[in-house]
């Protein structure tokens, strides 16, 4: 990981800021003059993880590029809650596209900037998991394949939350959604289905792929920073809990992201040109039950030993596969 681990400074680098750290080591979010790319007054629900993740990521990109970022945004919550006509919460050039073509719009803007000789202006395309893993998937794969100079950020809240919580190909096994009700012998979303888009992105052998979580800000910012330091197609998927869709308390959003990481449900890793280059260790491992319990979408899973052990098996597999418990250098 590119950020320095500072030990014993009371909270080290686990909190957003730390008065004892050198200014250069502090997060963008801890600075008074952060750009607040996604400003107050937006209509996201209380405790929205996506609003938080988007500000974390875009603020970092703005800092890295001296505020020269253009963003293309797929249809979805992030678009709807930030830009009810004629208001906008974005404080950077921002364009809304269709549900499925944000990567292609990003490609077009990048091409335009190249033609105009403005390669100092960087392009970000972003969307939710529905717009990314399902509807925009073809455009995204094309953008990767062409290695267009775009950072694509997927804010993963594991479903179509804007339209009323339907299942997407990022919805985890067992989860209740409007289209995967907890009825019958296999209640909730089917297990062993869905797509792991970060690994699919890596299969394109693009320069940079990473997963991040809103509970680990230093890690998230370091990944955005790294992504902005390279050219070509890059992909970042940020885990953003959704209180409305998950049936969790708004105050628990960051905590749920933390429990997903600490249980092994959401592995944090980086890959370059098809190879995994680093993973972020679990700090204090917890059983998946702790992650599932505060969410109503998993209420039936917690009571169902078979499903519960299936979820634990997924976490265990992640821990094994990505070596999440081994000491990193």
């Amino acid at each position, binding site marked *: 990981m590119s950020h320095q681990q500072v030990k014993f400074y*009371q909270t080290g680098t*686990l909190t957003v*800021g730390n008065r*004892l750290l050198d200014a250069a080591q502090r997060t963008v979010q*801890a600075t008074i003059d952060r750009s607040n790319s996604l400003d*107050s007054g937006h209509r996201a629900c209380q*405790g929205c993880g996506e609003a938080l993740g988007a500000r974390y990521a875009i603020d970092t990109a703005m800092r890295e590029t001296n505020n020269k970022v253009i963003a293309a945004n797929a249809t979805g919550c992030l678009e709807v809650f930030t830009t009810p006509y004629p208001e*906008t919460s974005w404080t950077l050039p921002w364009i809304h596209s269709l549900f499925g073509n944000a990567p292609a719009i990003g490609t077009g803007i990048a091409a335009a900037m190249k033609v105009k000789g403005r390669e100092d202006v960087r392009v970000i395309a972003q969307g939710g998991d529905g717009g990314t893993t399902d509807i925009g998937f073809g455009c995204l794969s094309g953008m990767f394949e062409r290695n267009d100079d775009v950072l694509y950020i997927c804010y993963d809240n594991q479903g179509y939350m804007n339209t009323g919580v339907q299942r997407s190909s990022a919805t985890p096994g067992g989860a209740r959604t409007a289209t995967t009700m907890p009825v019958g012998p296999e209640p909730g979303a089917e297990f062993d289905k869905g797509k792991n888009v970060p690994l699919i992105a890596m299969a394109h052998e693009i320069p940079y792929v990473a997963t991040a979580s809103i509970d680990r800000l230093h890690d998230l910012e370091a990944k955005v920073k790294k992504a902005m330091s390279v050219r070509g197609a890059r992909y970042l998927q940020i885990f953003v809990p959704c209180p409305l869709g998950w049936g969790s308390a*708004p105050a628990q959003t960051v905590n749920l992201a933390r429990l997903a990481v600490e249980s092994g449900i959401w592995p944090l890793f980086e890959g370059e040109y098809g190879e995994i280059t680093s993973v972020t260790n679990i*700090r204090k491992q917890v059983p998946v039950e702790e992650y599932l319990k505060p969410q109503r979408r998993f209420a039936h899973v917690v009571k169902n030993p078979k499903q519960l052990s299936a979820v634990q098996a997924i976490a265990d597999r992640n821990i094994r596969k990505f070596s999440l418990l081994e000491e990193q250098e």
Partner: protein
Amino acid sequence: MKNTKPFAITLDVGSSLLNKTGSWRTERPVYVDRLPPCNETCPAGENIQEWLYHAESGDYKKAWEEIMKHNPFPAVMGRVCYHSCETACNRVHLDDAVGINSVERFLGDQALINQWKVKPGKSTGKKIMIVGAGMAGLACAYHLRLLGHEVTIFESSSKPGGMVRYGIPKYRMPNEKLNAEIYRIEDMGVKIELNTKIEDVLATKEKYGFDAVFLSIGAQNAKLINIKSDESIPSLSAIAILRGIEDDIATGLHGHVVVYGGGNTAIDVARSAIRMGAKSVKVVVRKSQEQMPAHYEEIDEALDEGVEIVPFHSISEIKKGQLILEKNFVSDSSSAKPTGQFVAMEANVVVQALGQNVDESLLDNLDELRLEDGVLGVDTHLMSAIEGVFAGGDMIPSERNVTVAIGHGKKAARSISQWLHGKFEKQSKKHEVVDYAMMNTWYYSDAPRTIRPMLDVVRRTSGFAEVVGDLDETNAAFEARRCMSCGNCFECDNCYGVCPDNAVIKLGAGKRFEFKYDYCKGCAMCATECPCGSIKMEPELI
């Protein structure tokens, strides 16, 4: 009017700042300062969390100055205080308590090395008389000087320091540190009249024109019991022995030493006897080892050094060069009952360490004042039945230890000052104590406690060298940084970071934060993610 807007555009672009999402809120976050458990339990009323905060950033002088607002003896405290703060420390639930005591000692020693000083307050022209230059008297003198009053202390012994000098052996409390901290108080203009026993308090007050009096003579008379004896083994008093060691007078400790009593004084004598070459040292206690009033750390160190504890026995007779002990039966109700079974024990000296009494002769000329249950009663302002005569330390009803005495000194000084101004102030209400459950401790880095280097057991039993070593600057800062700052914002920026609505304003270093209630939706994420529990959610009153 001609439309100058592009095709299909009818409205100007506006910012979402027009949309005041604060109206969604049913609960509002507020910043609070809660009381950390260390501060709550400190008998001297130190603001421990505050001075650790300064020590964390390496500002040792500021940290020391914060201690000095409440306690003029950090170097002494860092050695002899029984640190109830560490017992109360919330970090116990995470790994191990913060080594507050060792950091305090480091700061106290830094002050002595760098000769940091404290200035007395602006002169008020009032004169206060203090009887007894123990910790309570010296602390009171110090605080009175801070408040600008003139102070004279009358002390019957040849040196100031009271029980810290005469009751605590040098391996725990080296003289040069004690002398230096007392000198710093004298340097502020406190007069100490040594070898002066006050016979008539009010007459002395009248004679020199003092405006108020603080009595702090301690409890220096040994409580001795009559053991049936044929005089074949000498029976000595623990307090006299410890005093003898300080003044380099022969103590009579030799051969097989048996100490009777389970308090800190008993352990001090036992450990001193080991250092003076006793063949064996046994401490006889009536009840179990766990029920001994001595501090567990002292007991552990004594056991390491070879002291043996003999529980469930009373000394019943000294006969033909032997001690006759009677076995006790201790039921759940914890009172010891004799069983009538006797055993003999080899001994050359018996030392009684069964407590101390207040010297009543001081009250001979004070008709209004009488001891009750061996102590002098005072009101909540530490004033006795005589107007303008205050008292504190071991002589009033309270737990008897150094830190409590220093706390009395501070409180008495403030009461005296208020009394001189004609009115006692009401005590301000204490903040809510912060409980571990109010905090989000995931954020605190794993950091095991630094163990103060302990002198090798063999080395420390052969002399009076100090047993517990110092922290150096790097590990003192490290230890301070283990403080979780319970209930008090330490500017970690979490609230500022985790708000999805940018509804927290960062005011800059040292100025903390403010909420933008126009936009705060009341999701309580800030309160949940605040590591130290200094954000509280309150219902919105509509």
